[in-house]
């Protein structure tokens, strides 16, 4: 059954990998325990992806393992509806921005091993 979720869309993702025998057939990225998965960013080394719930109240990180893509490790952003997050190339820092009061835009950094850090320009 299909349904629309506001103006949101789900994103389906595929990837192909280079092997010694050439390129693999396209595979879907299936992330377990991720509801309403939306991909926003991807570490450039291709090992880590960023997912979010459809309500943007959680942001999750997932990485490719031998058994597929890991269950997301979620954190709660400091603002309810962050702009599309970016992820650093090494996958350790998530940067997102937004505003609580719709006046002062603020940039937030989430360090994978620590809590979010607020930075006020």
């Amino acid at each position: 059954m299909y349904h629309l979720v506001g103006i949101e869309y789900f994103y389906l993702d595929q990837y192909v990998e280079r092997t010694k025998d050439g390129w693999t057939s396209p595979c879907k990225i299936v992330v377990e325990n991720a509801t309403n998965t939306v991909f926003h960013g991807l570490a450039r080394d291709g090992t880590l992806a960023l997912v979010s719930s459809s309500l943007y109240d959680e942001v999750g990180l997932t990485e490719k393992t031998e058994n597929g893509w890991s269950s997301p490790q979620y954190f709660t952003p400091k603002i309810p509806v962050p702009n599309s997050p970016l992820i650093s190339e090494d996958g350790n820092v998530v940067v997102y921005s937004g505003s609580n009061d719709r006046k002062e835009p603020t940039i937030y950094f989430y360090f994978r091993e620590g809590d979010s850090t607020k930075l006020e320009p």
Partner: protein
Amino acid sequence: MYMENNISRKDAAQMKRRFISNCMIYLLVLPGLIRQALADRSDDFFDHLNELLVYEISPEEGTISEFISTGITDIPLSALSDDWSANYDGSAIYIDRKFIVLDTNNQYKIEREIHLEGITRHPCLDSEGKIITYLKREPGDNNPSIRFLDTSTGQLITQYTVLKQHREILFSYDISADANTIAYFFIPYSGTGLGDLYVVDRKETYFTDPILIQDRTFVESPPRVSSGGNRIFLFRSVCGTD
């Protein structure tokens, strides 16, 4: 990888690990400037920003630096959308025809002006900031090429001219951070949203024949090539399902 400099793929991988271990990530951010520009709104506000600033981030220490001023001013807003790139560790930036590097005193300076010819899109610095790649298309011409410039001289290293039958690539391409792998969509099924995904590898100054990765797939955004060119990701949106 980095064949021009006789650096092997193994060496490049070691360099990358070193970067990661250092965990020094520079990010270009501009909202502060936007806020300032709003406060100082002038007639040309919608055309230019005042200054380019950089944050320096150290995830290991959990610190974020104060703004580092690049000294680069009067940046067209148009450059922010599709005309700039930073290399892997942020030590090199290309924006609005300016090639900017971080010197040993942690100061950014304009190294040189590099003019990208034709109708250009999507300039991309390689990891080391030694090569800038971009898509070139002449006005009224349907003959695009992906060009590789040496940032130390601004001169053309080589270029990949898209095959005649593949010339409708419509800017949907990406290139690996080592500038050796190009993935692009050939879109022959006009109006259907479908395209064929190809990969081309650069070997110094020549290119391999395009390899068909997937045919008749939906094209919604450019493919994303991983840093080392070993993975390609496609993104697409569909309505949710129960």
